[in-house]
């Protein structure tokens, strides 16, 4: 029997949303922090990412790791969404090794550090329960290191980079 698999945009949204959260969980763990609080919010975070990938309002996903005493950013991990979806190419791509290498390079965060997730959206996004407008922490004086594409299915994917202090 021959099986034909049909790629749909919904499949790509599910794959990319799951792997964005999986990658961020790995970043938190490899940075020396406890991902328990992050996975505790998995469903809420997933609902927002999935909804706004589906409507193509999601521009990026930002994980801020910050000093809770000063509220200053220590490092910010960005996954910028690329909307080049096509039903022609159905390959699955998540590069965890590149992430591991980059996290080692970025270094461990202090055990006292905290993290928060921000979603950067275009205007006109549909409402998602539990999500509202917020503000990012200052990235003044930080430099960006790019990893390139780390997640992709059928052209829908994410390009990862991180911002850290230049000193």
């Amino acid at each position, binding site marked *: *029997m021959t*099986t034909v*698999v*049909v*790629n749909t945009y*919904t*499949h*790509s949204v*599910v*794959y990319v*949303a*799951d*792997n964005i*959260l*999986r990658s961020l*969980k790995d970043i938190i*763990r490899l940075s020396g922090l*406890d*991902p*328990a609080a992050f*996975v*505790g*919010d*998995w*469903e809420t975070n*997933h609902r927002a990412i*999935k909804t706004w990938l589906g409507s193509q309002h999601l521009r990026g996903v930002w994980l801020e790791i910050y000093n809770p005493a000063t509220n200053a950013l220590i490092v910010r991990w960005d996954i910028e969404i690329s909307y080049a979806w096509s039903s022609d190419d*159905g390959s*699955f791509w998540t590069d965890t090794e590149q992430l591991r290498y980059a996290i080692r390079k970025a270094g461990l965060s202090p055990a006292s550090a905290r993290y928060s997730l921000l979603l950067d959206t275009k205007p006109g996004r549909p409402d998602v329960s539990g999500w509202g407008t917020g503000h990012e922490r200052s990235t003044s004086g930080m430099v960006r290191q790019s990893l390139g594409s780390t997640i992709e*299915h059928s052209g829908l994917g994410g390009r990862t980079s991180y911002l850290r202090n230049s000193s």
Partner: protein
Amino acid sequence: MSVVRRTFKSTPGRDASETWRAISELLLRNGDGSARAELEAVAGIATSLIADQAPREAPITVICSGPRTRIYCLYDDDAMGGEDVNEESLGFDPLNGEWSISLPCPADDLSWARRALAQYSKRITARDLSEKQAETAASSTSSSVLTLDTKEFLA
């Protein structure tokens, strides 16, 4: 002890959260309140392990006073085709009596996952997914496949 296998489609056929909900519904045959509360409490941790594709090769193992249930997940193209999916309801209560659930877990995630699970449940634990062989070997010695001896039966 007999062993029953089920195979659930996961990413991208359904997302990891939905996969855990579907698995939970299979297990909550009697809708037991306390068991439901425990399965819901660990949902984020279990979902994370499913997203890690831990149950691809190593099963979620459910032990109770009856048959043992092993649950695998399908990913990528296998989760879109559906011909290997078997999510049929079980002919017994998989959480009957003293039950426990062992979640496969990547070795690097074991420390935080065990700590986090312990906050919500004593029955739901995580094991290194590479322990699959030992678990399989141990269970095979105490497991039996039920077959009908037609010669004896018709005699």
